[in-house]
């Protein structure tokens, strides 16, 4: 759009369009750019409601010991009843999202506040995880009843918080997290289908894979090497999800799944490309029978999506090669750690080169630099654990540095030629 507006004076000077047409075009795009008032109001309403709700909780948390027990109990239930009333009013009078979203958010925090204050009045112990779990569960139906995005976001955030409280640094598994995420799926899929272009849907698309990435860790056992393999399989699943036509149609959607998974895969492959990863506990099987099925499910689902559901793969996809060859290299690593190290290094190098090659064919500068970054990161990682002489290491850095300049230069020129011939 910006480009069109920039071109306007030139088009007018050369007599391609009349000044009046130029003005019309400008007016059209300016009006299109203007923010949609009601959605902005809704967003501010939600932020206001969330801050008010949190404020009420904090005011309660002060613990006003000058109040009697009865006053405190009444105070605990008051916001709950008031905001339930407000939400019921919004529902009965068929108010728009501008009303229902903030009302739902206020009710969400009122539920938490009332339980917190009563626990405080009667010194009910119970850990934070249990409290968060009950709170999230009590507000789950509201997501569907109010069809509220803000509540779906709060649901994901609080489910993640619960999982963190339960699983972080503990052997306990946050099982309820699985239920919370599964319970949100019908809502999420419905949003994807009905409102694929809405900003709120994009936000859910970003939040959901991040939450799952964080919480997967709480379900794993203490098997460091094996967990890295599980995570690569998990990112493989996220990557194949990003290839689904439903997400592909909107780059903003597949972007969050795609970016997170590609970033995760590259980082973890770099971790496994070092010698110490394979030599750590090399004498024993770093393995967990409990989480093995998880890895297999991730890989099987990725394979299913890649083969039958993903948008017609026109070209060779280096990430898919990395995802499915990793388990084989991982198993090789138990018998021959040295071979596995070399194979992973070749895999990362190949991944980088393939990304550059694909980028060059599509004249995509962003991906070209991503490919170069992968190779640069691989070389920087090797800088730390090889005994190459400084001269050779220096030379390699210079070559990669120059590679950045030349590759970008060549691609920009090719792109220009391509555009001219078009």
């Amino acid at each position, binding site marked *: 759009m910006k480009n069109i507006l920039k071109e306007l004076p030139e088009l007018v000077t050369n007599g391609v369009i009349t000044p009046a047409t130029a003005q019309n075009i400008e007016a059209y795009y300016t009006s299109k750019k203007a923010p949609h008032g009601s959605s902005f109001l809704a967003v501010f309403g939600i932020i206001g409601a969330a801050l008010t709700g949190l404020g009420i*909780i904090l005011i309660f948390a002060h613990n006003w010991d000058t109040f009697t027990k009865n006053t405190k109990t009444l105070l605990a*239930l008051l916001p709950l009843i008031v905001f339930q009333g407000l939400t*019921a009013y919004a529902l009965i009078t068929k108010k728009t999202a501008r009303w229902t979203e903030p009302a739902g958010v206020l*009710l969400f925090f009122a539920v938490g506040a009332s339980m917190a204050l009563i626990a405080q009045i*009667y010194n009910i112990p119970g850990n934070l995880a249990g409290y968060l779990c009950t709170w999230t569960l009590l507000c789950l139906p509201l997501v569907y009843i109010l069809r509220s995005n803000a509540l779906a976001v709060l649901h994901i955030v609080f489910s993640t918080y619960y999982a963190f409280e339960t699983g972080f640094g503990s052997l306990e598994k946050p099982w309820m997290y699985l239920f919370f995420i599964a319970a949100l799926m019908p809502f999420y899929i*419905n949003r994807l289908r009905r409102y694929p272009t809405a900003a709120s849907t994009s936000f859910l698309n970003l939040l959901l894979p991040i939450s799952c990435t964080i919480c997967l860790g709480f379900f794993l056992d203490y098997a460091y090497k094996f967990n890295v393999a599980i995570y690569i399989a998990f990112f493989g699943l996220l990557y194949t999800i990003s290839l689904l036509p439903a997400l592909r149609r909107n780059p903003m959607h597949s972007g969050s799944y795609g970016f997170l998974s590609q970033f995760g895969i590259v980082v973890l492959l770099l971790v496994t490309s070092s010698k110490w990863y394979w030599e750590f506990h090399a004498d024993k099987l770093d393995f967990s029978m409990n989480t093995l099925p998880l890895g297999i499910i991730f890989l099987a689902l990725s394979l299913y999506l890649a083969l039958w559901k993903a948008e017609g793969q026109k070209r060779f996809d280096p990430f898919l090669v990395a995802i499915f060859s990793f388990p084989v290299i991982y198993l090789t690593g138990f018998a021959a750690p040295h071979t596995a190290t070399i194979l992973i290094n070749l895999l990362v190098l190949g991944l980088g080169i393939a990304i550059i090659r694909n980028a060059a064919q599509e004249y995509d500068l962003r991906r070209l630099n991503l490919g170069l970054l992968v190779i640069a990161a691989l070389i920087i990682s090797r800088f730390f654990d090889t005994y190459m002489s400084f001269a050779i290491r220096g030379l390699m850095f210079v070559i990669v540095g120059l590679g950045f300049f030349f590759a970008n230069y060549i691609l920009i020129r090719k792109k220009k030629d391509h555009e001219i011939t078009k």
Partner: protein
Amino acid sequence: MKLPNRKLLLLGFALTAIVQLAIPLKMVYDCEITSTEGTEYKFRTSPIDPVDPFRGKYITLDYEGASVRAKNPAWEDSDETYVYIKTGSDGFAHVTHLSHHPLDIPNDYFKAKAYNFYEGQVRIEFPFDRYYMEESKAYEAELAYRDFNLGDSLKKPAYALVAVRDGNAVLKDVIIDGMPIRVYVLKRRENK
């Protein structure tokens, strides 16, 4: 997804609202009935001060009687342990029996979590180890207790006043030097 029927939606909301109200009300009811009709026990304790992001500041109570002699390690990580208590000749509550099932004895009991069996002793997590306090007083309470506990062994021991009824236990107050900890902290402020 088809839009649900409006009446169904309102019914769903009404049910959700009722459950949202019922949970805190049930909490109030359970605690109130135990508090008013339960038998009061004194548990010797010492407090420290942590914080909960939603429920505010509290003092954690470390109970002297929370380690109980047991013959076998079957108690380890047992979520539902029935802890039977009785007031001893010293005026404080003592654990008399531990059981995985309710026992047919007249003693009061509460349900607790048993963990960590070590050298013939099993540790029990008493379900009344948090005492919520006004935020400025929680840390002062810990300091007050520390000062109080120093030196003079003839002082009255600090204890928690707990009402017990039908397996439920409610912590009513924490007593230092014969007065509620809140009053003790205020008195200490005046003396400074």
